[in-house]
């Protein structure tokens, strides 16, 4: 049986990543209350959301350290979700 071993982050790294995620969430919440930002508010919130999303996927879900095949499968799901997102909005004439 092949037993290819691969490395994962240590507990210390996981704690640091969790602290980072909490900090970003706190910033997001703060931004949601700042009204004078205008359209930039939405852009910032989405940007921080994307950062949190991919941080969890890369580190906690180990995609950064796992084989490329899993990255491709998940990417397919994400792109598919965005396509579904666009199709639903287009079908309902939201654009």
């Amino acid at each position, binding site marked *: 049986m092949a037993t290819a071993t691969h490395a994962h982050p*240590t507990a210390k790294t996981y704690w640091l990543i969790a602290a980072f995620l909490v900090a970003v969430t706190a910033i997001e919440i703060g931004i*949601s209350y700042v009204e004078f930002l205008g359209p930039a508010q939405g852009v910032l919130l989405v940007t921080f959301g994307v950062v949190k999303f991919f941080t969890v996927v890369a580190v906690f879900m180990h995609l950064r350290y796992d084989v490329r095949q899993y990255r491709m499968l998940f990417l397919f799901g994400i792109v*598919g979700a965005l396509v579904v997102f666009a199709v639903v909005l287009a079908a309902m004439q939201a654009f």
Partner: protein
Amino acid sequence: MAVATDDVFEEHDFESTGDPIHRTRKTAMWIWLGSEAFFFGAMISTFLLYRNSTNDGPGAEIFNIPFTSASSFILLMSSLTMVLADSAFQRRDQRQGRIWLIGTVGLGLTFLAGQIFEFTEFVEEGLTLSTSPFGSSFYMLTGFHGAHVAAGVLMLSLLIAFSLRGRLSADHGMNVELTALYWHFVDIVWIVIFTVVYLLQI
């Protein structure tokens, strides 16, 4: 075979990514998570479409952002305890793994309790499943997410029971890893829901 060159990484000696059965199961899990992304993508776009269709009923103004922020914090922390549980089982530290799993279940149940409380508050304020398209799409999206959390709590509880009965040996370590993948997926879906549904005021 050590891959790490510094203390950032640690070695896991039983996670057999080269084992065809393990690799097939993990591939199947990633395919399923990809299909789940499609599912939630459709639900989120439906919510965005109807977020202003309130039929003169309650809308996004009834959201309690501080409360939901606390719920988000709890779910983020549950991802930390989950990854620590996975890491402990990879090291064959059953006791430590169980402790982190119990912590994850506790956080998951706290999140669910918060969601039930939130739904109860909204219903009292007049927002039900049939009040408006906004209400329908909101409850469907967050309700399905809550159902996924509940399923995750059930799976984690089973893992704890298996571990206590000594049926979560190194050979079954993949079960923890697959459950962890599912749990983190539930977390990232919430990251999107929290940002798009609660914080973004389009």
